[in-house]
């Protein structure tokens, strides 16, 4: 098993520290040294540091299996999920910082939850059903191919890595970000949603929407779930064009 790194390596962690609840909070980097163990992930490493060296260290993990999206953090400058980042893949010096863009809660912990909630509310990211649910009817049919396509974009876990990696999100506060645009595209493709391209146009074909993107596409490169964000942007741009022409 390739991920079981040889034990015995001494790892140095430099971790961003900041507790806004402290009386005179001072942001700084703090060093910790620990022994590497086989299959060591940042989930294991950070818990080891907290439980044996500094119990005040704040960070977020929940599922520790790369499905809940809690543990986005900057790992040697790259937005990553801490739980699935194995130390075996990293050099001896590991620098951890909180994701930018999001509000800092403390140390490595950031408020992705509120950001994503506001984003979803602003684009009404829910099914606008054509009619009320009928509990006595069989389900509406859907082609399995389409279901698979919807599932593909539904896989986003809102970890915030793409937003942290996004040049536009760094300076445009209201930019919906790659994850936000992916979610919009997901509902646009869903035939259960009654909104048509024209309804969507003002939501996504704007400066805060798909035209806010600078085209750097770091989002596509770092997405831990490997969402096809390039295709999402292409889809939205195409939709913007065809809808605008229809509107004329």
């Amino acid at each position, binding site marked *: 098993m390739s991920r079981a790194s040889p034990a015995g390596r001494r790892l140095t962690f430099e971790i961003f520290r900041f507790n806004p*609840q402290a009386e005179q909070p001072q942001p700084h980097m703090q060093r910790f040294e620990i022994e590497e163990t086989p299959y060591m992930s940042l989930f294991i490493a950070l818990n080891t540091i907290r439980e044996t060296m500094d119990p005040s260290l704040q960070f977020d993990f929940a599922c520790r299996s790369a499905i809940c999206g809690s543990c986005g953090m900057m790992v040697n400058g790259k937005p990553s999920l801490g739980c699935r980042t194995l130390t075996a893949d990293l050099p001896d010096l590991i620098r951890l910082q909180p994701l930018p863009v999001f509000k800092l809660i403390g140390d490595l912990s950031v408020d992705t939850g*509120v950001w*994503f909630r506001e984003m979803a509310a602003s684009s009404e990211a829910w099914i606008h059903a054509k009619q009320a649910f009928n509990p006595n009817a069989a389900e509406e049919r859907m082609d399995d191919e389409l279901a698979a396509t919807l599932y593909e974009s539904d896989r986003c876990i809102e970890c915030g890595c793409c937003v942290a990696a996004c040049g536009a999100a760094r300076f445009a506060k209201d930019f919906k970000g790659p994850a936000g645009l992916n979610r919009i595209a997901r509902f646009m493709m869903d035939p259960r949603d009654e909104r048509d391209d024209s309804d969507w146009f003002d939501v996504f074909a704007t400066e805060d929407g798909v035209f806010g993107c600078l085209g750097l596409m770091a989002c596509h490169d770092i997405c831990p779930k490997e969402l096809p964000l390039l295709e999402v942007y292409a889809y939205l741009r195409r939709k913007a064009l065809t809808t605008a022409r229809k509107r004329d």
Partner: protein
Amino acid sequence: MHAIENTDVLVIGGGLAGERCAIEAAAAGHAVLILSLVPPRRSHSCAAQGGMQAALGNCVKADGDNPTTHYIDTVRGSDWGADQRVARLFAEQAPRAVRELAHMGVPWTRVRGGRNSYFIRGERVSIEESVDKQGLIMHRDFGGTAKWRACYAAAGTGHAALYAIDSEVLRLGITVRDRVEAMQLIHDGKRCIGAVVRCLRTGRFFSVLAKATVIATGGHGRIFGQYTTNATINEGMGAAIALNTGVVPLGNMEAVQFHPTALAPSGILITEGCRGDGGYLLNRELQRFMVDAEPQKQELASRDVVSRHMAVQMRDGHGVETPFGPHLWLDLRHLGSAHLRTKLREVYEICRDFVGIDPANELIPVRPTQHYSMGGIRVGADGQAYNLRGLFAAGEAACWDMHGFNRLGGNSLAETIVAGRIVGMRASEFASGHRHEADLDVGTDACQQAEQRAREWLQRSGSGPSVYDIRNAMAETMINHVGIFRHGDELAKAVDELRQQLHDCSVAVLRSKAPGMNPELTFALRLENMLRLALVTAMGALARTESRGAHSRTDYPLRDDERWLNRTLARWPTGNSMPELSYEPVGILDLPPGHRGYGDDARIPMQQTIDEYNGSVDALQIAAGRLDATNFNDSVSRSAT
């Protein structure tokens, strides 16, 4: 002065059960507040992978399926420990739950008409799916079921369901507070009027007063430390604050499910859908030991049965030895890369990311690991907790009790939606029929108590043990003595050790006095609660001198329907050093106790007649003034139409 907030319905827990409940209450016009440890979409519901059971009967291998068959499978799975009326109610409502989720946007995998290729009992078979069924919701096979019944969205079913439900919560404008923790219930021993809450951003306490309070905080697998598939947030605080009232009992806490296939050594879940889709279990000699062990169901016997066979394999030296203990293999190679990268995509990714293997070419190291808490806050069929009016519970936090001593795979996801709706309805009715008994003094007192506990932790000094060392000791006690196979001597040892750990907890000292949420303090405030849950579990297991479902006693290997066809109720009276156990019948028996269709058939039969047994159930329910299950089923069915 503490902040005090008011709402009609307070829902503690932002997973599927809690949010489904909140949707029902909000749709009824109530003000609803959801509290969640994490942003709701990070709740552990998102980690459910393989499927959600509902008898739609849409594909060939599901042909003829119906809620009655689903109900019978569920009761058999429970080893007759379930409340059968609740199981029936559940099975009847499950199809609605799946379709409701479809309406909210879940991209369920659909039937493809024409030739489809499947793996069934070790062989590749080609089956012609009817073109008439094209586009309906597809099923996959799961353990312990007579038909293919699990509806699924690849291997991300829980994720898709949670996002759909949470989108509905957003649509309805329900207030959600994330990063908060309910620390104790506000009550007077008869009526619950809300909860004291701690903010996990700032560490500040506040109170929420409510007409009805629902606990939907999920399971408590973390009392097994790292020996669980559960998320770090599954520490059982909802069940604990109910137990801490002194009046509300927890049901069947000794009923603990071990999932056969957790990734070794990390404990990350690998879905049962792998075996449903044709995966094999292999031992060190690469033999399919389940074929001999369970000729009929093979790898798809119930989880308790498969986990026991796996434990025996490893005990007898057929495990693969590693520095982290032995494991067995899950073989998916024959399913092919295309299948693994679509229908089992999440499994493919977990294998790649966490052990660096491609399951299309390599074997997956697995071993049974704590997975699900059948036990929880004991509630009636309507979700109302015993002995405390205005308190409800739903989902894994509750003991409703459709799972008895073993839950079938895919039944928990379905339960969250079915129970969430029903309990939401009942909590709404309760809120409509009751005024705010908003006693500001009671709220303030409770808040001060909770705050005082935190202050005591921060003030304690000296060289006492660390909270993390105590947690590690608890984990070793639970996995070593309250695991898959249990014995009276081991369980007695567990009770002793846990009592010692409770004492250690009372003298433990924090290493950090950091202001704000202080992660060590946050954990310390949970530790005593976790130990109390662990102790209730070990004591229930010690007292139950039989083997039923996941509760397997080597010193009492038979299921004993004469003495133990009942449910354990554990209360912890305020001020007592130990909990008190009592028992109630499992409920009306429509299906007489019998063989499950897998596992051992030997058992001690009941001497009473079914009528005598059922008579005692009625008498008890009437005496307790609880809702009659029969009428309740009728009323739910009516409101469904």
